[in-house]
């Protein structure tokens, strides 16, 4: 499974430009499904028929945060804006990959004082990107206005811990791929939605369930951590303590029945788990719960350090345990 994680995280596919990752997911799935389609907004929906009447929707978003080019000046420097929640501080000193073209990030500063001030109150308006072009024409030949880019960062296996860009949420995609591969004959039908444009506001997930009309929806996404030096003191989650069952975040409160069902499953099967409260942020579950007359929805999270940086870190055992828990869930008799 580490190979799959490496392959998925190293693809560059920011929100709105997900074709490359969708193709790669299908390739990795290697026919382990009963059917698939891309819907009108580009969501990749892959399903496996079950024996029961129930339909479970699993969701992980396949887009990642990135940047988009908004201007190219006379000397060939690019201006960029954020695609999703990119912290400008993580861009300083980073490389950006624009579909194979590398750019490096610089900060304006006409005096030592203004350079210091710009760094202190860093925003995209004082950043520029250098693609090694000497003038506008050379730059525009490489990267046009409207081109999208992502962090240029590699996957690294640190043993139990894995580091990469875009763990958010390729790790969720990897979990769903593994589920599809390992579940030969699921009890309930499972629909895996590899959603688009989550980072911009749950765009893909808002429409993905419309035709499926699932009985229950589970979003699989990353969440923040509270286990590094002076980490946020109201956050309880720790790397390695198992899948995090979300109580609530900024967008949604998990359906209580699903939450308690998952809790009981984990207890019964001896799968480690933890409970999650995230005072901000949100997942695609926020979209599914408002679909039509309402779909009971919850989120199962993988605790991740340094979310939205080029170096997001997860615990491999958490990932495996998430697969285990969801596999048992998909094979359970449910009454939602």
């Amino acid at each position, binding site marked *: 499974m580490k190979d799959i994680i490496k392959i998925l995280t190293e693809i560059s596919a920011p*929100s*709105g*430009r997900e*074709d490359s990752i969708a193709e790669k997911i299908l390739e990795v799935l290697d026919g382990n499904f009963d059917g698939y389609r891309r*819907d*009108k*907004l*580009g*969501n990749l929906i892959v399903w496996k028929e079950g024996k029961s009447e129930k339909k479970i929707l699993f969701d992980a978003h396949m887009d990642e945060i990135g940047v*988009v080019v*908004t*201007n190219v*000046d006379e000397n060939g420097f690019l*201006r960029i*804006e*954020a*695609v999703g929640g990119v912290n400008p501080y993580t861009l300083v000193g980073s490389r950006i990959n624009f579909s194979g073209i590398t750019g490096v990030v610089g900060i304006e500063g006409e005096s030592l004082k203004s350079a210091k001030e710009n760094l202190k109150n860093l925003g995209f*308006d004082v950043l520029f990107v250098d693609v090694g072009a000497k003038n506008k024409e050379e730059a525009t030949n490489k990267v046009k*206005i*409207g081109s*999208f880019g992502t962090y240029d960062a590699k996957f690294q296996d640190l043993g139990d811990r894995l580091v990469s860009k875009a763990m958010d949420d390729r790790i969720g995609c990897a979990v769903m791929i593994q589920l599809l591969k390992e579940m030969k004959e699921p009890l309930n039908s499972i629909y895996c939605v590899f959603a688009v*444009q989550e980072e*911009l*506001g749950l*765009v*893909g997930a*808002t*429409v*993905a369930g*419309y*035709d499926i009309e699932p009985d229950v929806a589970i979003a699989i996404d990353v969440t923040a951590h509270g286990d590094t030096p002076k980490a946020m003191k109201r956050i309880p989650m720790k790397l390695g303590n198992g899948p995090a069952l979300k109580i609530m975040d900024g967008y949604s409160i998990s359906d209580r029945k699903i939450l308690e069902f998952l809790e009981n499953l984990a207890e019964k099967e001896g799968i480690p788990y933890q409970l999650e409260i995230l005072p901000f942020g949100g997942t695609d579950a926020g979209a599914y719960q408002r679909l039509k007359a309402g779909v009971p929805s919850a989120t199962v999270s993988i605790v991740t350090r340094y979310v939205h940086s080029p170096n997001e870190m997860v615990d491999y055992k958490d990932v495996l345990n998430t697969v285990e828990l969801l596999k048992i869930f998909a094979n359970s008799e449910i009454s939602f």
Partner: protein
Amino acid sequence: MFLNELSPISGVSGDEKRVREFIKKTIKDKVDELYEDKIGNLIALKKSKFSSTKGKFAFFAHMDEVGFMVTKINEDGKLSIQPIGGVDPRLLPGKRLRIGDKNILGVIGFKAIHLQENKTDVPKYQNLSVDIGMGKKSEAEKLVNVGDYAVFDVPFEEYDSHLIGKAFDDRGGCSLMMDLIFENLALPFDVYFAFVVQEEVGLRGSGIAAEEIKPDVAIVLETTTAGDNPELEEYRWATHIGDGPAITFMHRGYVVNKKVYDWIINTAERKNVKYQYKRRTAGGTDALSIAKRLSGIPAGVISIPCRYIHGPSSVMFKDDYHITLKLLKVLLEEGEVILS
């Protein structure tokens, strides 16, 4: 062009009826179907002359404009107001308003400069009020009601190459749709025109119109902010006057569907129609609420660049309008590409 007639009409979000009636009256003989939905969107259909049509194409533009609502009539006969949509209160001192169905004139004064202790006082809604020439609450109540809508009282003006007026955002888009309806083009597929309500208070009307029409592809026609002024470096301009329609690749909450975006850009390139990129990603349009309806509707955005939108004196370059209209016509001619 209908902008000269559309711009002066009062039609703040939630009070679009006059705009809707004008459009209805003007286009009713030119369309195959015309109806109003529950929330007040006006939907028109131009059918294709060909029997085997491939799908449904829809244009959207919003009828509403930003403005004000009277929230209180004070004892001294002056009115308190709050904005509907984003109107910077610093624009208000020294302006005239038209209030309510009776079009009552009101003026917004500000403490005379000689009397100000602090000359840098910032106008806020809390320290502004509207004077309708009445000295008592009971007198004022004869002319206006709490809840009356108000707009800037300004004329529309046309010069050789420029237009000045209020509410260009988005009567510009409405005018483009009316021009397309009047062109009597040989349409290769059915085209819907949705004149929608409540865009300025959170992209509200368009989603319902989309649910009604169920289009395969939608294009939102907007009037968008031009930043070409001496206070802003060129690289910070969202758009500018004189280089034709602005094409959006991404805005708040939505990356424009790649197929639709590529189709617009490629068609403009191929047909040699001048265009520019919308170069800032802040702000949203109805494309967001349309894209998120039903099982997803690929939506794009094309805008006429315009200076000082959301104020009493927007400035538009006529050529930009006409080039935008030209682009829309070519897109319709080539539209089968996107519907197939």
